[in-house]
């Protein structure tokens, strides 16, 4: 991956593509590359939908190789939702395919002057950029079906739905999965709107004729990969738990802990949680001939996804993730899995972030636009977003805008981005990460291995407020590093508990690139990513005042434990002290 594809959509005479060496970005991939490039090349004060913004799509360091679970794709830009830097990542086949084509990144810059809609086709022979206005307004499912006829069922598709074309701030970018369905999304932060602003409807990646990427030391790589796979398979979460129930297995646990945000973060428990739990979902999928154990890309050994069939036994959508089931389920008082699955399908088809959409509907319900628990109203809201009605455009702009338009105070956002499925009053540690992440409220920002493995940070008592700050800091550093490898964040559970599995990951990177990285180097990589992102946000006008949770989290007690968020502002300001 020593080359980069730069596509100037605003070039004289029409879009121009040029393949150039990665140059100063050599050795970077995934989030490390997207954030380095955006922070260096995108003016922080530019309009996110303007010509000066750039959309950067980068596979991870080990994507395209035989390394298990290395198929995450990073998408970076200035976010139309937060106004700050954004890295959103997705599973599916795109990362592996782009890496095998040899590209460290696709950088889409500039902006066409007209209304024409473009496709970008990339294979081993080069790049073709074509106008195809017949694709306007198509949902991701119909779009991919149409493109498959024109290109190949074996190709991989990166696309936007109508919400991206409308440039709404909740728009996602879809990537096709192993079955060539547009089910895996770079959902957060409105990356789909940026792709829409460049008038790019789809990127088609065809790696026919390209082999696996080759490591510099094949024997060491093979041996490290074996230890890596063994480590993932022997861990109870990555080896068994995720495969059996998927991520939605968390519903019962968060509910039991009283940290399951219900009715727009009003309560910490949802009465009908067992109706939408991962256990119930997996049983229903099996009963209907679906599959609760399925990978989102080839080379995944954890297989936390699944196939959801409707009541007639026909494919409806992929297995909705925990955060999706929460956003459209308990957060909106909806206890019917078929309704939630339909909302997931519509989100994927229109190209909308499921977390942002669910949180927005929760705010709309609090505003009195519908009653909590009204599944038909929720489906109608999403259809309005997809069709671009006046109401739909408000809702499609996210929870913060919807809260302002309809006069709702309890809007669960940080930096304009909706909070996912964990109430920070019950789990203060995640509240620290929600508040301080450069991405806005993001449950994946502080997800990976921590100080116990990386050996970073000091020896602060974890029970003290300083300890919570330190843990969040170290988690954010480690996550930024993992996001750069292309590894699925769920590897965190195995490397968290098994230091030898973490070492296998470092050994794989070293064998692949001929590096001699240590755990300290990995930590430094994570720090450098966060420094780039923080510097961009500061130049875009962000201050410590933006590193705060909404006031109701410190003011209103959360039943049933009646807890409030108690980490002070001064403590939050200590997170980024490096």
């Amino acid at each position, binding site marked *: 991956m020593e080359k980069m594809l730069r596509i100037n959509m605003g070039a004289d005479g029409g879009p121009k593509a040029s393949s150039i060496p990665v140059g100063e970005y050599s050795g970077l991939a995934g989030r490390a590359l997207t954030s380095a490039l955006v922070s260096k090349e995108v003016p922080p004060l530019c309009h996110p939908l303007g010509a000066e913004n750039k959309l950067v799509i980068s596979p991870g360091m080990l994507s395209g190789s035989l390394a298990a679970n290395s198929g995450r794709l990073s998408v970076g830009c200035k976010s139309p939702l937060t106004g700050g830097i954004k890295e959103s990542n997705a599973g599916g086949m795109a990362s592996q395919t782009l890496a095998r084509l040899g590209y460290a990144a696709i950088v889409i810059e500039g902006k066409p002057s007209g209304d024409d809609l473009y496709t970008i086709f990339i294979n081993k022979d080069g790049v073709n950029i074509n106008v195809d206005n017949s694709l306007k307004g198509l949902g991701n499912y119909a779009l991919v079906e149409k493109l498959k006829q024109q290109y190949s069922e074996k190709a991989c598709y990166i696309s936007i739905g109508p919400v991206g074309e409308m440039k709404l701030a909740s728009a996602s970018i879809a990537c096709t999965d192993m079955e060539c369905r547009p089910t895996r999304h770079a959902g957060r932060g409105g990356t789909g709107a940026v792709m829409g602003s460049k008038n790019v409807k789809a990127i088609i990646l065809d790696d026919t004729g390209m082999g696996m990427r080759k490591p510099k030391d094949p024997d060491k790589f093979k041996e490290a990969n074996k230890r890596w796979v063994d480590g993932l398979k022997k861990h109870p979460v990555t080896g068994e738990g995720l495969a059996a129930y998927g991520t939605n297995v968390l519903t019962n646990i968060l509910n039991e802990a009283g940290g399951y945000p219900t009715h727009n973060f009003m309560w910490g428990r949802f009465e009908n949680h067992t109706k939408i739990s991962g256990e119930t979902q997996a049983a229903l999928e099996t009963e209907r001939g679906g599959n609760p154990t399925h990978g989102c890309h080839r080379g995944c050994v954890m297989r936390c996804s699944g196939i959801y069939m409707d009541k007639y036994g026909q494919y409806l959508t992929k297995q909705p993730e925990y955060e999706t089931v929460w956003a459209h389920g308990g957060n909106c008082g909806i206890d019917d899995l078929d309704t939630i699955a339909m909302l997931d399908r519509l989100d994927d088809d229109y190209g909308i972030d499921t977390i942002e959409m669910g949180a927005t509907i929760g705010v709309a319900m609090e505003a009195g636009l519908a009653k909590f628990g009204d599944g038909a109203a929720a489906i109608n809201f999403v259809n309005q977003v997809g069709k671009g009605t006046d109401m739909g455009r408000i809702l499609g702009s996210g929870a913060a805008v919807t809260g302002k338009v309809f006069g709702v105070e309890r809007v669960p956002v940080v930096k304009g981005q909706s909070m996912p499925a964990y109430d920070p009053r019950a789990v203060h540690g995640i509240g620290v990460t929600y508040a301080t992440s450069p991405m806005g409220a993001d449950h994946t920002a502080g997800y990976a291995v921590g100080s116990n493995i990386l050996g970073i940070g000091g020896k602060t008592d974890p029970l003290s407020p300083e300890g919570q700050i330190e843990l969040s800091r170290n988690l954010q550093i480690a996550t930024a590093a993992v996001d750069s490898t292309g590894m699925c964040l*769920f590897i965190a559970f195995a490397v968290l508990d098994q230091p030898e599995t973490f070492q296998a990951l470092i050994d794989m990177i070293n064998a692949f690139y001929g590096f001699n990285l240590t755990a300290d180097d990995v930590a430094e990589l994570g720090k450098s990513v966060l420094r780039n992102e923080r510097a961009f946000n500061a130049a875009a006008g962000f201050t410590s005042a933006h590193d705060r949770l909404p006031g109701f989290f410190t003011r209103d007690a959360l039943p049933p434990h009646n807890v409030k968020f108690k980490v002070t502002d001064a403590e939050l300001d200590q997170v980024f002290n490096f």
Partner: protein
Amino acid sequence: MFDKNKMSRILSPILQKGIMVKTLTGVTVRRLLEDELKLSHDIIDNQIATVFLDGRPVDNIDSAIVKDNSEIALSGAMPGFVGATMRRGGFYSAMRAGITHTDENLAIETHQGLVKIKLYNSLIDLIGPILFSSGFFLSAYEVNHLLATEIGPHLTTHVDKDLDGLISVSLRPDQ
């Protein structure tokens, strides 16, 4: 003899909501699991990763005391950062300190009482059949529902006069 997998599927919703067991209370969580529910050391120490007592995550099952009418929820290993914070005695347990179960150091007498047990994820298949064999209590509504399923013919039920509104359910001894 019927299919144990089918039994788990039928029992899963009931076990997630919770079943009542008549047991000695005023004892530690470990003692209840070990002596009253007859769970093995392997299950207690290696399979039960997360324990909630009255809705609060427990770090030390050797000191947390189960009272009459307590609710205990048991889970296998959980994904997600928050899943990791909920583990008993885990490295990230400090991040949910505000809701952690704390021992009250009260002298509580032991006596027979009722405790609600909830089972989640992998523990449904692992512990569900053990509880089912020894028997537990459900509401009349739940028992009627269970009797109408495929495992209904394999059950024995009886009303406990001391427990108003609850019916004892267990697997027939010949199963």
